């Protein structure tokens, strides 16, 4: 069967790729476009390691078909820093030691950015529930939550 030609925008760049009908957006990003920052931890939407945004909505890219990206705007972890300038969340994750192995980190950053874009002054409970779809097995979440709260405070002050 012939492949589907998809034209889309990824991290602001117009991009095109060919994919099979059953191929996920995550596979297209990783295997076709070399954007391996999004990770497959489960393939069933339970771990959030593959988080990206599609037209500004936070989604698991393992639960989106590549073909659905047609005409959409996708952002991934690779689009989070502005050149060599880190997003404040990225810097705070480093400052707070909010990562150990780092496999879940791209997903957490993408999800946390979506939260702060949406709710600049979240409570700890809001942060915890917003990020409940991002599993981390190393940190016990403590330092991640602190990094997000601290970023929010700093960004509000800025």
């Amino acid at each position, binding site marked *: 069967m012939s492949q589907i030609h998809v034209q889309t925008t990824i991290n602001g760049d117009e991009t095109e790729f060919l994919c*099979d009908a*059953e191929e996920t957006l995550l*596979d297209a990003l*990783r295997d076709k476009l070399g*954007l*391996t*920052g*999004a*990770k*497959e*931890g*489960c*393939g*069933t939407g*339970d*771990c959030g*390691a593959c988080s990206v945004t599609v037209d500004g909505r936070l989604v698991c890219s393992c639960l989106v078909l590549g073909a659905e990206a047609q005409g959409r705007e996708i952002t*991934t*972890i*690779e689009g*989070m*820093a502005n050149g060599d300038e*880190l997003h404040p969340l*990225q*810097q705070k*994750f*480093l*400052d*707070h*030691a909010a*990562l*150990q*192995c*780092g*496999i*879940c*980190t*791209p997903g957490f*950053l993408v999800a946390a950015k979506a939260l702060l874009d949406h709710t600049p002054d979240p409570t700890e*409970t809001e*942060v*915890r*529930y917003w*990020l*409940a*779809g*991002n*599993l*981390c*097995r*190393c*940190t*016990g*979440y*403590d*330092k*991640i*939550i*602190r990094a997000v709260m601290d970023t929010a405070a700093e960004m509000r002050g800025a």
Partner: protein
Amino acid sequence: MLDKTADNGEFKYVGTRPQRPDGLDKVTGRARFGADMVMPGMLVGKVLRSPHAHAKIKSIDTSAAEALKGVKAVITADDFTIDVPEAEYDTMVNCIAHGKVLYDGHGVAAVAATSQAIANKALKLIKVDYEVLPHVTDVEEACKDDAPLLHDNIFTEGLDEAPTTPSNISGRVQFGHGDVEKGFADADTIVERKFRTEATHQGYIEPHACVGNLSADGTGELWCCTQGHFMVRNSCAAILGIDISRLRVTASEIGGGFGGKTTIFIEPIALALSRKAGRPVKVVMTRDEVFRATGPTSSASMWIKIGAKSDGTITAMEGLLKYQGGAFKGTWVSLGCMTAFACYRADHMKTVGYDVLVNRPRAAAYRAPGAPMAAFAVESVVTELAEKLGIDPLEFRLQNAAKEGDQSSYGPKHRAHGLIETLETAKAHAHYDVPLGPNQGRGIACGFWFNFGGETSTSLNIGADGTVNISVGTVDVGGSRASMCLMVAEELGVPYEKVRCVVADTSSLGHNDTTDGSRTTFASGMALILSARDAKQKLCARAAKIWEIPEEAVEWVDGHARPAGPNAGEFDPMSLAEIAGKAETTGGPIAGHHEYNARGAGVSFATHMVDTEVDPDTGRVTVLRYTVIQDAGKAVHPAYVEGQFQGGAVQGIGWAINEEYIYGEDGRLQNPGFLDYRIPVASDLPMIDTVIIENPNKGHPYGVRGVGETSIVPPMAAIANSVSAAVGVRLTELPMSPPRVLKAMDDAKA
């Protein structure tokens, strides 16, 4: 050995919290993990797994799969070497079944194809003719005489008389001292109970992944996520019958391991497929495969009995532990027996353990393997006994805590350690005095783990600009490269930012044992300190040459070579960069290295305190407050030490409340995914408070003890004590999931 201590204020870099060297790559998505590697011409490899818990493989027909367009190789057990060393035999059979499948998910065959879709299609075309056999997945059931037998060549080891019939009990072990009968006779109060725990999975977020490239002549390379790439090299070489020197293994960044990546699963399969196909092959497990075929813990059935005098002195401690280790022999029950009573002093101690085989995946290490389940049982009884005696459980622990010079539960006398300090700190902690509301309870528990040394090789190279490269062979699972850089910066007296650490491949260093046993910061760290001392000596020698004075007349102080005394001559101190800049003309590159079998690992103790609230109508447990207090010896990078404490505690919370392997009547795993294998999510938890105790390990120049594992030992017991206090009923089975807690409450009311 202990050269520097916090007390004399000598540390400049160690104990600070700088940004980790691999951090930038990890927050930008650039870090390359197991599944992120691509090799030119790469094929996709997939493994066919058994749908049966126990079955004889009568035949495998791969012809249709081989005929499928795009399929480049199909392999079965026949593609592996026959004369595998005994030590690796079980590992090989666990990777690919030989004649018999032993658990749901056991690998049977594998394919390499030009795409994922073709590989999946090919798997469906492989015809396996199974003769299904009766199975057993429960540890107690497996011990019965009429239980289905997994292996007809395993006879129980460690019995007084050698058995004549094979058994699912592969071994009996015993530890202890004194005479427990006498000890119990001296006791005024005795508590004994039975406990059960279900198997849990390490639950790392990164599934196993590798890319292998092996030529017909046995030369190859392998990229994989593992806790020990030297172990991977040696095991794969043995299983594939190739020379160790021909296989270069590079460890990718690793997305969590916790012990589960201390053995191999897909690596020899990728290499065997590659050898057959003549192209690189990438194998990435699905989450379903991770749960069904890789390292869960043992499930356990335990009995614990402890007696004490009315003044609170423990007189005897006895335990019987049965751990299943999956379908192959294991050693985990030994560790359970050795650690069970390690926090206590008693004249009479005895633990007996049985290693039991069942139709489940081969148990792998999981953070202090074997210890957490035993601690759950023991610490539950310790608290219950204290309550019966009318003594505060924390005071009771303080009264009976093992101290330096006391005979340990595993044999030798204890050396200096920080257990008492963790208990005293708990008592003084604000958490201890927080008032509790209705349906709430507070629990405490202690935990112990050995920590290991092991084979280690490191090198250190000084660049012409005075910067320092260090190479270690121990995989960095949680920020250890930062700790390595801190220790080298400390030793050489150069800024942290001038030191960079890489995890070198297997062809670049001598053998390194796996990152396990909380050994990396201890063993690689000490090797690097010694490598740095080696380099310092050479730097001093170069300065001596430049100054034309004897080597002994030069000393290294604060990052500079200086004349050692007034008689050595008048020279301005030379920095490391200055000496390095002249390396070419003074004798060539300056480097240090060290290879050893690290000795001197220091044991580690912890006390955990937790408050929970139980919904009286549903049995649901909420963790309200949690505090971890642990002896780190010396915290090199305190933020990552705290991270180890917090991570271990939360894994323990998962184990305590919701995580479990659920097998159906058919012997198949019912919950092989993160939906129904319920690891804690962010909204389940409070902040995890930590206190780092620094009781230095005299076996390390800076006093470092391992910190990675002890933190998972106390949580289940601490939570059980807390929940039991909240509901007024002793919980004796893990996980304490809502149905189980509600049933215990209802049964108590009835």
